[in-house]
């Protein structure tokens, strides 16, 4: 079995909602609500799901851009330690639980101290959804790409310049682009700058938050091929968030489908495409626009209201929009269960409807 680079357990992230005259805390937006996920070393895991279902939030929590509400994230920890901590935490004995908590502070990404976090920062990088927000408009491209190198004190002046140039070529830009500001580029060019910056520190894990949605297909193809090449070369691990399912299909080994803060389905790419089990995945796949004006696919249009993450539906969160929903779906929350091999699904009725 492959080694896990990231092991996420019962992760939750709530955003508080304030209201009333005194801006009291009145409710929570349950952006990520109990997610278990393992990301293997050297794989590319595609993460798809409805917009607003918590993909970016999940990614940001892995990067510790904000704290988690509860749950644990192990980054690059050995299986033994994880199992030991997990069993300690579940133990009946309060002393053992306490010991588990103590261990967590050294091994759990969400609880690491600043000092212990710093060496990890260089191993984890992100490419954001909207490049215009993540690139500092007052910095030259050269400085933007060099920033992580300088912050991590990885190399000296001359080497930095060389590395920046090398990175620019890697992502298909040229030397003359070095001395420009981000607003002088088109959307797609900006995205490439963001990718170059993410690659700068030779990271182990890159979170790609819709890296190619601003790119045209030929550049997208270039970048996808590039990402694949880098993955093979440096054994990079990606978490690839996107809405473009054909892109996911092309680059990922496995796909995770999220719905309203929860995992709906998880499995190898080919299996998800050939045999989607969850009704939401089925709707998602049927809505892919086909690049051919003649074929008109039959789309499953999701009816019903888009659910509210403050007050998610009871039972299966998809039930108000699911045409297979039965009483059990309204009452009991389905757990992620193994359907076949590495294919998991969280649906009460997957057997009957597939």
């Amino acid at each position, binding site marked *: 079995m492959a080694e896990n680079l990231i092991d996420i357990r019962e992760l939750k992230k709530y955003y508080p909602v304030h209201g009333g005259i005194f801006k009291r805390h009145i409710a929570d937006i349950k952006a990520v609500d109990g997610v278990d996920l393992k990301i293997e070393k050297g794989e590319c895991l595609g993460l798809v799901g409805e917009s607003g279902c918590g993909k970016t939030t999940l990614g940001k929590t892995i990067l510790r851009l904000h704290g988690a509400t509860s749950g644990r994230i192990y980054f690059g920890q050995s299986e033994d330690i994880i199992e030991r901590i997990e069993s300690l935490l579940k133990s009946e004995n309060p002393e053992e639980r306490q010991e588990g908590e103590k261990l967590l502070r050294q091994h759990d990404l969400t609880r690491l101290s600043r000092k212990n976090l710093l060496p990890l920062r260089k191993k984890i990088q992100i490419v954001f959804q909207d490049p215009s927000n993540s690139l500092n408009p007052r910095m030259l491209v050269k400085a933007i790409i060099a920033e992580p190198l300088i912050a991590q004190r990885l190399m000296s002046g001359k080497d930095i310049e060389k590395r920046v140039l090398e990175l620019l070529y890697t992502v298909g830009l040229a030397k003359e682009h070095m001395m420009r500001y981000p607003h002088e580029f088109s959307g797609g*060019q900006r995205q490439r700058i963001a990718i170059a910056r993410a690659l700068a520190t030779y990271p182990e894990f890159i979170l790609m938050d819709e890296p190619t*949605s601003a790119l045209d297909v*030929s550049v997208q193809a270039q970048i996808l*091929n590039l990402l694949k090449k880098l993955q093979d070369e440096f054994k990079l691990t990606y978490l690839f968030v996107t809405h473009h399912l054909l*892109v996911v299909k092309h680059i990922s080994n496995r796909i995770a489908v999220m719905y309203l803060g929860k995992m709906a389905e998880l499995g190898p790419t080919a299996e998800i495409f050939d045999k989607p089990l969850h009704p939401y995945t089925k709707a998602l796949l049927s*809505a892919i626009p086909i690049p051919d004006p003649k074929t008109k696919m039959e789309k499953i249009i999701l009816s019903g209201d888009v659910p509210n993450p*403050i007050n998610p539906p009871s039972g299966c969160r998809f039930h108000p929009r699911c045409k297979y929903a039965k009483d059990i779906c309204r009452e009991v929350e389905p757990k992620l269960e193994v359907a076949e091999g590495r294919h998991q699904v969280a649906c009460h009725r997957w057997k009957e409807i597939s």
Partner: protein
Amino acid sequence: MQRLIETRELYTDFFTFEGVVKALNGVSIVVNQGETYGLVGESGCGKSVSVRSMMRIVQAPGKIVGGKILLFLSKEDREKGIDILKRSEAYMESIRGNDISMIFQEASTSLNPVLSIGYQVGESFLLHRLDEMLSETIDTLKGEIESGVNIFSRLWKSFQIGMFRNELESYLKYKRRVEEIDRRLYELEDSEDSESVSERNHLNRVRDRLSKKSGLVEFVEHFPVLRRYRKKLNKTVRKHIIMLLEELGVPNPHNIVDRYPHELSGGMQQRIVIAIALACHPTLLIADEPTSNLDVTIQAQIVDLIKLLKKTTISSVLFITHDLGLVAEICDRVTVMYAGDACETTSVTELFEKPLHPYTKGLLRAVPKIDSEGELETIPGTVPNLINPPTGCRFHPRCPHAMEICSKEKPPTVEYSAGHSVACFLYSEKKDM
């Protein structure tokens, strides 16, 4: 087909520190009434600059340096069109939003971070559909009075009705006056004698100074107690905002209207921007990658909504996207751009069945398909630098069919077959020279 907007040989340059970026190299495109028109091409090829030029909102240091942009909005100017490059900024301001509205590419940057969602969408309603909002508010007030209320609230409601009627009247008067001026300006457009030039200048000045508000409304606004009458109008607007957000599939719209942009996910921000653009029922909707941040199910929903609106309120849609699947689904005609040139224009079926330009062919091969395996095909070479663009055909350094002439002359746009034009020497007679 009746044209709606047309660019003729449009050149836009950016005067940057290292030199002039020649972003548009004579782009001629036509959007007809009633069609959905697609603009596709490599990132950085000038799609956004083209549409920004069409609305006259090119960012500094950019400037339109040549060409014409013709607008065929009302019945009278269908013959020769209005050259908007010659019009005043005030004219453009009334066009933007009322007749043409745009969904910008990067959603989060076009939202104001310190204003609530409701305020930003509401502004669009109040600016462009004030008359509808006012009449509807008057009707609800009338209904409330009829259903029986006590004497005080009856008085207050009648006062509100009076105020809204007054506001509506002055707004309609303003609209009529502007229309008159614009008609006259249109007649004067091409005459160059001193009399008409001075009349033109005069009219432009008058138009800039026209006020939408009546004296009475301005007077009442000095009294905070009375000013509260407008709350009712805001309620009407709020109802419409919530309806629109619901149509766009935004979850929990009642709560969203009071939130701020950074509290929304990327896709929701995108839908808010779409809502702002749709709120004003434009004749032409320019959508610069409106759905690239949305998942396919919501994308399908929004595409359906745009299709529906096209039947009712919007006449034409100019759609910029990288997703050729989406192009196949909704566009009638498509132009493919490369490095500032419009290289091929055709109907969507021809585009996929019989692409002519070598760049278009490359583009279509790079599309990931359901059944594709292994490496994706790419177009070799890099995107050209637009400060020193390649001579002749700008695609020639990457073109597998490049001939000698390609590096020397800019290929003319020829009509290869009816409705299918292409700018490439492979299809022009000059080839044999």
